[in-house]
């Protein structure tokens, strides 16, 4: 079987007709006996910000975890820059340039802020410097010696995003980064996502809050019962409001 051609990062839009930057096909995932994903399929183009919208328990977080290789069992195809990653261990996937910011943030209590920030190894050249991360999140700079979990919820979220920007990963998986945060922090995270997009990062965002999602995303995939059931470009969000309300049950 011939390998799919490798698409250069940051390549032209024309290239994605041949092979998408990131493609998930018929992804299934299980936790023990429970079958959670039933054939998730979607694509992301380089430099896009794409969201997964859906109700609680629809399978959004499991989709991110399956991409990252941290679910107990997964099947189907996940192709990143022409490489099939569906069978790789999570540490190998990270080294290809995919980084994950989990829903529970995963700040380590036995590490201080600086150690948390520097923990993920650099996997590719071109990541942000620590100074650039401090420009995005000035709060972190003052708290470097604090225990990671002594930070406020908002600061922990900034740390959780900040630490994956150093690694050179080009595809960022952000799981509900605004959950439970004050509006002013949500705005800061919104600005951060815009800044990341400007720097050429590709972002896959899981969100419950579609009003926030609408301010940052190019396209939205709607996930329901472990499947992608619809795709709505952000520009057409207004026209599809009724449908979206139905999907999300809001």
């Amino acid at each position, binding site marked *: 079987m011939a390998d799919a051609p490798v698409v250069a990062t940051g390549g032209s839009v024309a290239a994605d007709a041949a092979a998408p930057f990131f493609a998930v096909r018929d992804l299934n995932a299980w936790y023990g006996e429970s079958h959670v994903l039933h054939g998730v399929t979607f694509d992301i183009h380089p430099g896009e910000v794409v969201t997964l919208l859906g109700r609680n328990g629809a399978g959004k977080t499991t989709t991110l975890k399956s991409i990252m290789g941290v679910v107990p069992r997964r099947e189907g195809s996940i192709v990143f820059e022409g490489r099939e990653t569906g069978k790789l261990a999570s540490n190998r996937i990270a080294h290809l340039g995919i980084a994950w910011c989990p829903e529970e943030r995963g700040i380590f209590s*036995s590490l201080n802020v600086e150690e948390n920030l520097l923990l993920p190894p650099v996997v590719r050249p071109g990541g942000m410097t620590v100074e650039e991360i401090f420009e995005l999140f000035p709060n972190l700079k003052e708290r470097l010696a604090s225990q990671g979990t002594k930070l406020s919820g908002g600061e922990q979220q900034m740390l959780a995003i900040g630490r994956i920007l150093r690694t050179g990963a080009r595809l960022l998986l952000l799981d509900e980064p605004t959950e439970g945060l004050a509006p002013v922090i949500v705005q800061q995270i919104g600005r951060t996502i815009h800044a990341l997009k400007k720097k050429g990062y590709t972002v896959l965002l899981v969100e419950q809050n579609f009003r926030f999602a609408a301010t940052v995303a190019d396209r939205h995939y709607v996930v329901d019962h472990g499947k992608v059931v619809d795709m709505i470009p952000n520009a057409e969000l207004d026209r599809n409001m009724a449908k979206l309300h139905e999907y999300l049950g809001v």
Partner: protein
Amino acid sequence: MQIFGIATQALFGQLLIGLINGAFYALLSLGLAVIFGLLNIINFTHGAQYMLGAFCAYFLLQGAGIGYWWSLLVAPIAVGILGIVIEKTMLKRLYALDHLYGLLLTFGLALVLQGVFTNYYGSSGLPYRIPDELSGGFNLGFMFLPKYRAWVIVASLIVCLATWFVIERTKLGSYLRAATENPALVQAFGINVPRMVTLTYGFGVGLAAFAGVMAAPIYQVNPQMGANLIIVVFAVVVIGGMGSIMGAIVTGFGLGVIEGLTKVFYPEASNTVIFVIMVIVLMLKPAGLFGKER
């Protein structure tokens, strides 16, 4: 000269014995703490691996004429590699299960190892000479300090503090601490956590073997030498707090000294004092003096 009606000679003598015992408690409980932290396995084979370290030094000397100093390096590596084989072939299969399975497996392995060695070498100790460089001692005026015993205390302290430094103050240590909290996330950052787990077990086992080599000239080489010690060491670990590095070191030395002093002031309690302290600590602070509630 007397203090509290006790001859200073006896007092300092027991204090020294306490520090020596404490040096071994600290080394062994440190290895147990490192292993428990990352693997979530209570390594009951630890005492047998300490015994293997001593036997390894004995074999190296008898079979190949390799002396104490090289044994101090070779035995921990050899026994550590054996530990790695145990982890890769057996322990690895148990991580998803309850702690109890790891405890049962390692306890069984300890019985097998001790049984095999008792079968071939009996239960009387085999002598191992103190290296020439460390024979004799210093007369400190108030007591006689054998050089080898001073060396054991210093070497144990250096190895314990170096281990603490690596785990608490270096990049490698931050991976280890982070993986102790959330191995799946650390692996998703690109770190090969399964390999780190294997090497950590090898390192913890190596520490036990290192202690075994140091113990060979003091306690003789005996298949049961670890079985007797490990029960006390588990009490030390419980008192210090499972998984705490500094806790293991401080409680190891501290309890050795307390045990030594008990021999002077109330000898009848010297065999039980550590267990009495364990009961009190468990009642007042179940996670141990330095442990964090999980």
